[in-house]
């Protein structure tokens, strides 16, 4: 038997409470630190680069005698790669989620779900490596593009990367649709597909949209995989078979060779600010979506 424990004094008790409260505030503090330091290091860029040139400039060329800091090519690269990944991954992932929760034999489910969890655990640098060594040859052979590393290559590897996120969150949403909905649909003579497409999926739609949002957010923020897959040429193009460079990749690649405190250094932080802004917007949209649908559906 343990000895009887003495009651801690009130001061000890409240000290512990404040300590825990302090720790809980850490997420707010971290967020504040991110905002403060990104602004602190990013804003000085605009003392040298006019804001309009930064946002609407069509050339990112930092090695030139007169360096140009226009982020349109980078933004374009990010949009192209993310857009491609979403187009490929979202339909497949949603169908896969429908399969797991509505169609699959329980035994198949027991195999597929852990596999998808494992896929989610693979580090992004490994996906990048796969894109660089194996996928690039495949995409080039099938499309005959001149650039071995191109936006399509990045989009495809990203599609595989974000699939586990989209699948598992959509599956949660689909699974949480009440059984009564399905039974009601079957009772009026709907078959399996009709029940899925007309009853279950619409009911799960808000959750599925949140899954898509998180997928987009992961795709835009992904660095290593796109860095290794897309060829890193800041070209302003909408050709998916061309080499591109994304906003995340440019930070990772160029921060290594930059002089701290230079315009280039500050410009890279300014790109970080834009990435942070995008994160806020996506998070806001996802929450708004959830709130709106929660208001409407029972």
């Amino acid at each position, binding site marked *: 038997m343990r000895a009887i424990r003495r009651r801690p004094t009130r001061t000890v008790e409240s000290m512990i409470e404040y300590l825990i409260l302090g720790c809980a505030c850490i*997420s707010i503090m971290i967020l504040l630190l991110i905002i403060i330091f990104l602004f602190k290091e990013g804003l000085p860029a605009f003392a040298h680069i006019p804001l309009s040139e930064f946002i609407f400039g069509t050339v990112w060329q930092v090695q030139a005698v007169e360096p140009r800091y226009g982020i349109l090519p980078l933004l374009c690269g990010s949009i192209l790669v993310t857009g491609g990944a979403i187009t490929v991954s979202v339909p497949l992932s949603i169908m896969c989620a429908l399969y797991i929760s509505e169609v699959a034999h329980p035994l198949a489910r027991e195999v597929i779900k852990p596999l998808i969890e494992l896929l989610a655990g693979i*580090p992004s640098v490994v996906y*990048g490596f796969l894109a660089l060594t194996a996928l690039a040859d495949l995409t080039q052979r099938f499309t005959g593009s001149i650039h071995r590393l191109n936006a399509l290559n990045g989009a495809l590897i990203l599609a595989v990367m974000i699939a586990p996120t989209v699948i598992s969150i959509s599956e949660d949403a689909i699974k949480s649709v009440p059984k009564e909905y399905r039974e009601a649909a079957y009772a009026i003579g709907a078959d399996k597909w009709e029940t899925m497409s007309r009853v279950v999926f619409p009911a799960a739609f808000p959750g599925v949209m949140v899954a898509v949002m998180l997928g987009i957010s992961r795709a835009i*923020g992904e660095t290593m995989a796109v860095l290794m897959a897309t060829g890193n040429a800041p070209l302003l193009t909408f050709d998916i078979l061309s080499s591109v460079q994304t906003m995340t990749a440019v930070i990772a690649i160029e921060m290594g060779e930059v002089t701290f405190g230079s315009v280039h250094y500050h410009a890279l932080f300014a790109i970080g600010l834009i990435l942070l802004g995008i994160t806020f917007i996506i998070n806001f949209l996802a929450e708004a979506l959830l709130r709106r649908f929660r208001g409407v559906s029972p």
Partner: protein
Amino acid sequence: MRFRRVKSSIALVVIRLSALIMVGAGVLIFIYLTVKGSGVISWPFLTEPPRQGMTSGGIFPAIFGTLCLMLLTLTFALPVGVASAIYFAEYTGRGRSHLNILMRYATSILAGVPSIVYGLLGLSLFVLYMRFGFSLLSASLTLSILSLPVIIAASEEALRSVPDSYREAAVALGATKWQMVRYAVLPYAVPGIITSCILALSRAAGETAPILLTGAAYYHPRLPTSIFDQFMALPFHIFALATQSVDPVKTRPIQFGAVLTLIMLVLGMNMVAILIRIRQRRMAQG
């Protein structure tokens, strides 16, 4: 009527096919990496440093660096993360005060912040502002900040799954709030908390972008001896060999070996976490 039936069965075939594509891609990835990497991995490969300008030899310094990084990250992130989760789950987490709403909002934003932005924070805050330099310390602080949201969310869930009757029993015996948490709630949430930490750590171990900006070195001949040293790390080693070395094609086998080592490390941790979770669920049921 017949058209309806045909449409439905086509749709079901498409659904099965897309699941097959996903599963096939996953299985293919694992098989490809295992086949290409398993021939390279050997005891000397895992325990020897790189030689001849990294074109031969092993990857030991990178493995060692990654292990150091994980250990330090855990040291920083675990106490704060668990305390934070205790606050959310046991103290006023259920309330709707402004502070609470703000905290939840911050946690959900942090979970979506790209890892390269964490790298920027680490560079500007730890490396330059606090003058820790490019070091193990800067990198592991950055990684612990990155893994905090994961640890908090999962630990909170573990704490919440402890039945209320445990809390009520403790309070009925005259325990204070902290005694209740410490002796009645925490012990039963430990497996869940361990699972969450393992998952967060395995994520941190594979992160490349943040350590790229805060201290990972392409080649560092000796092992780090203090937390202010630069270090080699597995994910960065893979990236560097594949894209920046003199002869990326010649070192391809080393790259595949390093990739398989990293995957085994990360997925091994994942499996341990999954096993703990399954055992715990069985205990809760039985």
